[in-house]
């Protein structure tokens, strides 16, 4: 860390690991091809959509619009800090990460990074389907910046962590998705950077594996290294990070203690977060997604046992025949439950013009925790995604579990527990039958 040779002009304060000054990133929208990332795509679509026919008859140049994905962002991260970055879709989180990882360059401002940096924007970057697990460990390791000697040294550890020993010489295209993710994370987990940047890596894999990842990141942070963690999973952010930076519309909105910022974020989302997106190829605009309670009021707070209504307002500019809609609710440990037309088969005959589609999840069997709603719409044949978003709405379940008959000594742990409670009853040896459910006794 502090070298004796280094000029000690500054007091003995930990040096900043990352210093960001007036960072800005501008995208020019309009001439980009249709395979841009979700956010750019959405904005492009929203601008083009309603006026597409008008514009196309005019000059193409009109379509070029400047868009600042990040603007005037400045902050510092100290060595050993674990910082979460939050914000709604399109707030600039991914852009910030891409600049920090040097995948793209900023339009303005500068960043100084002190220490070996590694970023994980995706699990398994550079994996090749045709190659075996063993070959991919080397390839992926090299892509992530490890030397051959380093990979050879850590090879056994990586294999052990990934738990795929017997499939080491099988092409990864024959792996289950779980095995694939485990192997990929195992390689990444054995990078030894001083600064680690992680983006939503935990959104994949099963619950047990996610826990393992979180654990690995936790121990990484405890060893005094700097971690930058972007996630929509507020509980993970809160457990892992001491400090949170909240980006909004490409600007730094708030910066402070994790607990406070996350709380603010949740309180604000009810008023400010209105999700919208568009896919110009299919002429579908999702105007908003709102959550309503039993009484039909818009809300982002529910009590256990209440109904949750997810209401989607759409504008189908082209007729959309028999689309599939999938909604899901996810919590700390991943998916809780889903309403899936691909499975239940109740799909709308056609979507044309503006309209609403809703789903009522009855008597939420959920513990007081934070949740988000995911949504996807697929084409008639079910193969192509029209829109697919992990976080279209957020809500929290609040309430005192004591009111529901919970009386355990460790009740406070409910906030980290598996959130879904199917009504159950204990049958004790003495013949007592103890029913437990999240239905409010007043009902």
């Amino acid at each position, binding site marked *: 860390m502090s070298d004796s040779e*280094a000029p000690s002009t500054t007091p003995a304060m930990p040096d900043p690991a990352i210093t960001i*000054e007036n960072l800005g990133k501008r995208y020019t929208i309009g001439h980009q091809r249709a395979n841009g990332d979700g956010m750019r795509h959405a904005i492009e679509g929203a601008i083009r959509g309603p006026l597409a026919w008008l514009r196309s008859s005019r000059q193409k140049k009109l379509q070029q619009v400047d868009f600042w994905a990040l603007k005037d962002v400045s902050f*510092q991260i100290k060595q050993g800090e674990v910082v979460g970055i939050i914000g709604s879709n399109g707030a600039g989180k991914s852009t910030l990460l891409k*600049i920090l990882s040097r995948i793209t360059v900023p339009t303005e401002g500068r960043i100084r990074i002190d220490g070996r940096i590694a970023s994980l924007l995706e699990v398994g970057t550079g994996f090749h389907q045709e190659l075996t697990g063993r070959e991919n460990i*080397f390839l992926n390791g090299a892509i992530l910046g490890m030397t051959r000697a380093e990979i050879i040294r850590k090879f056994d550890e990586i294999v052990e962590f990934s738990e795929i020993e017997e499939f080491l010489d099988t092409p990864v295209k024959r792996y289950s998705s779980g095995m694939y993710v485990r192997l990929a994370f195992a390689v990444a987990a054995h990078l030894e950077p001083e600064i680690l940047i992680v983006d939503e890596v935990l959104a994949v894999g099963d619950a047990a594996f996610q826990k393992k990842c979180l654990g690995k990141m936790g121990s990484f942070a405890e060893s005094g290294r700097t971690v930058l963690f972007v996630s929509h999973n507020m509980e993970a952010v809160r457990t892992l990070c001491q400090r949170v930076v909240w980006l909004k519309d490409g600007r730094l909105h708030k910066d402070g203690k*994790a607990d406070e910022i996350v709380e603010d974020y949740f309180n604000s989302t009810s008023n400010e977060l209105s999700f919208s997106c568009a896919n110009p190829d299919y002429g579908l605009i999702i105007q908003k997604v709102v959550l309503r309670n039993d009484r039909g009021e818009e809300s982002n707070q529910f009590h256990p046992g209440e109904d949750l209504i997810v209401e989607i307002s759409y504008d189908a500019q082209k007729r959309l025949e028999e689309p599939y809609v999938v909604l899901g609710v996810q919590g700390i440990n991943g998916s809780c439950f889903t309403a899936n037309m691909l499975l239940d088969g109740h799909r709308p005959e056609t979507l044309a013009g503006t309209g609403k589609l809703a789903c009522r999840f009855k008597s939420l069997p959920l513990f007081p925790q934070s949740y988000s709603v995911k949504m996807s719409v697929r084409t008639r044949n079910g193969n192509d995604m029209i829109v697919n978003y992990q976080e279209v709405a957020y809500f929290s379940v609040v309430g005192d579990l004591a009111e529901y008959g919970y009386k355990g000594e460790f009740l406070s742990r409910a906030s980290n527990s598996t959130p879904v409670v199917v009504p159950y009853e204990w049958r004790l040896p003495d013949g007592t039958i103890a029913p437990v459910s999240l239905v409010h006794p007043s009902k």
Partner: protein
Amino acid sequence: MQRTRIKTTPSSNLPPVLKNLAVKPTTPGGTKRFGTSDAPRMNQLLIEAGRTERQYWRDLWRYRELFYFLAWRDLLVRYKQTFVGVGWSLIRPLLTMIVLTVVFGKLGKMPSGGVPYPLLVFCGMLPWQFFSTAMSESGNSLVMNSNLISKVYFPRLVIIVSSVITSFVDFLISGVFLVVLMIWYRYAPPAAVLFLPFFVLLAFGASLGVGLWIAALMVEYRDFRFIVPFMVQFGLYISPVGFQSSVVPERFRLLYALNPMVGVIDSFRWCLLGAQDIYWPGLAVAVIDVIVLVASGIWYFRKTEQTFADVI
């Protein structure tokens, strides 16, 4: 209804974290450290708008093993699930050699300068095949690796160089075949064969220079996906692969030499077969061509590289 806050988190008893760390430019030390007088320490990285990173060439060195890994991946993948396998890198030039020998040698009755026509053709095929596969492979390489480009950093130059290396491996395999062919015809190379490494380098440079240009252009203009196969197809006939460049009228030869592959192929024949005297002005043009191509290719590639992730 009372609102219950979910309280939890082991993090609540962590040491208080400094609030509002947003940097004020006046913070002593904060800005001073950006000063140029501050010599960059090891592992220090400065990302700044509008300035190409100084550490690019250092990074290229740091990622040197990736050249090998990417080439290795492409070679491994290329012949997986094929029946003939590596044999393909022989079959292609072999068949082309037969066709060109028949067309130019037998039907066209082109002069061969006393060399067996198949040898003459294969000697031209060798650098040409290298050049053309390198051109098409590196052209597609960035687009093929777009998932890497949008998710992880490393000098993108690595991708191009390793696809040239991949083609170079094919070149070496064909080279072995040329040796076999020469033994078959009992044809000993002249002493000039000692210059071969230099000409191989020249061929490598030509492939790299053109590859850099096409790869960078392909990212922005996918039109090159259609242009490159044309170049490969025409190039085979425009370059002196199936015939000797001495058949070109004397006054056009310098002009003809502007195609760098003319100089490369001629020199290959000169040092391997001693078939014709080397045309020095042509070789000089080729060397200048290659230097300009590589330099400008690197320049253009570096210029556009930073926006690859945004455009691809």
